[in-house]
């Protein structure tokens, strides 16, 4: 089974802190994605990557950056966390962009 592992299930951070969310997949997938899920807003794409060192902005990239130094790892970075970034963050990977395999999610609370 394809496995997408998000390193932290629950995080609590303070406003202004730098936050790293790590995601690792073990099936040699080219494509990786970061979404956030909020009640009533569904899944919104933050950033995605089709190859190592490559990144593309999604629908809501403001306040976020990403890093993909290795094929299996895709990190989401919040340079200066704010309360409106409190959310469930979901990482996904795929061989083709259509069928995504998601991780279990990282619930971030910013106080």
């Amino acid at each position: 089974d394809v496995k997408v592992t998000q390193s932290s299930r629950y995080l609590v951070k303070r406003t202004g802190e730098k936050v790293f969310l790590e995601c690792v997949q073990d099936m040699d997938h080219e494509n990786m994605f970061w979404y956030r899920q909020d009640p009533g807003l569904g899944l919104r794409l933050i950033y995605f990557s089709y190859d190592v060192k490559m990144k593309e902005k999604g629908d809501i990239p403001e306040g976020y950056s990403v890093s993909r130094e290795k094929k299996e790892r895709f990190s989401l970075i919040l340079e200066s966390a704010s309360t409106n970034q409190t959310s469930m963050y979901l990482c996904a990977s795929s061989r083709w962009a259509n069928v995504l395999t998601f991780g279990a999610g990282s619930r971030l609370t910013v106080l």
Partner: protein
Amino acid sequence: DQQVKQNSPSLSVQEGRISILNCDYTNSMFDYFLWYKKYPAEGPTFLISISSIKDKNEDGRFTVFLNKSAKHLSLHIVPSQPGDSAVYFCAASGGFGNTPLVFGKGTRLSVIA
């Protein structure tokens, strides 16, 4: 502008009956559609998909219907089971290549025993 719309935030169905979840899209370039299911505190899991060259795809209790002229798709679950209670997301893609999925806002299905 919302390209994929799930207009019903929630749906309650009795166990054993049919659940019908609906999804509308506006982008005529979409040609591949998927449904994902999400339990609380877990990531979404792929459920079923359909290409625009078909109008129906079936997998066990789950059937997806596509009406291209109406830009509408629906997911039918028959018979519904309590374990089907989850949030269901409709998603669409502009092609089999590397186009990110566009998701709807989701419909919370509750199957009552």
